[in-house]
């Protein structure tokens, strides 16, 4: 069974930066395909995502749950079984992703939401955990 591929769809340069950062920390190359919404219409963004998904074992990550990237990704994946869309993508989430690409996409997506959330911590002055 092939490993799950990650597609990150985000505003501006963010997708490329997230993919490069994940590669530089993990050393795992080519697991994440970045797609930017910069300078493209909703129709073109949908086309790019559809071509990237291409019926494979894929998780689509987006930056903002209410954003145009999420709208486009959910529109594409609505008709594609077993392709989850995960919003609020961050580095902890992607690092966990690249090391668990043998899991089922839906099961992995649930895990990654938890990992992404647990990577957000307020280290408040004067308090120790």
């Amino acid at each position, binding site marked *: 069974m092939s490993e799950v591929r990650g597609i990150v769809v985000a*505003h501006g340069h963010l997708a490329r930066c997230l993919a490069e950062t994940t590669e530089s920390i993990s050393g795992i190359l080519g697991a994440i395909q970045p797609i930017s919404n910069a300078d493209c219409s909703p129709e073109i963004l949908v086309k790019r995502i559809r071509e990237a998904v291409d019926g494979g074992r894929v998780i689509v990550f987006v930056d903002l*749950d209410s954003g145009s990237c999420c*709208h486009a990704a959910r529109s594409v994946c609505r008709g594609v079984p077993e392709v989850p869309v995960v919003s609020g993508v961050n580095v902890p989430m992607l690092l966990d992703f690249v090391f668990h690409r043998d899991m089922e996409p839906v099961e992995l997506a649930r895990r990654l939401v938890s990992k992404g959330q647990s990577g957000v911590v307020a280290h408040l002055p004067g308090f120790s955990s």
Partner: protein
Amino acid sequence: MTLTLFRIDERLLHGQVIVGWGMRLGIDYYVVVDDELAASEWEQDIYGAGLPEQTKVEFVTTEQAIERFQQLDSLPGRGALLTRGTGEMRTLAESGVLAGRRVNLGGLHATSERRRVLTYVHLTQEEAGDLEAIQAASTGVTARDLPAGKEVDLQDLIDDLE
């Protein structure tokens, strides 16, 4: 008058609108004028997801927007009316409901038919004609992607297109 923003933006309810404009202006509700979306519940779910708590959204056809304009313009709180393209806003303007209102031109992105006039605005001649018609039926059309951005008059956009 509670509708405080009239915006043309082909991404409709997206981050720049909800966060950049909505949070700055304190928008309580959105009216999305789009015939296709008004008939598609699953797309409405996608567009409505991620709105701030308490913020409402209503999807209406162009015809409904004209018929119900007074009501949509007197809902509690501050509202924003959005269209995907210039054509829908032109129809609203020519019905008379935008008299005394200013229209904001947001994102219209590159296609093979459009020419770039700003980084976030690309226009065909037909769309430029729509904007001129909107301007004639309102207090004006200006382009501005975000509240802090530079406001550009329609005439400057048209001059760049020619």
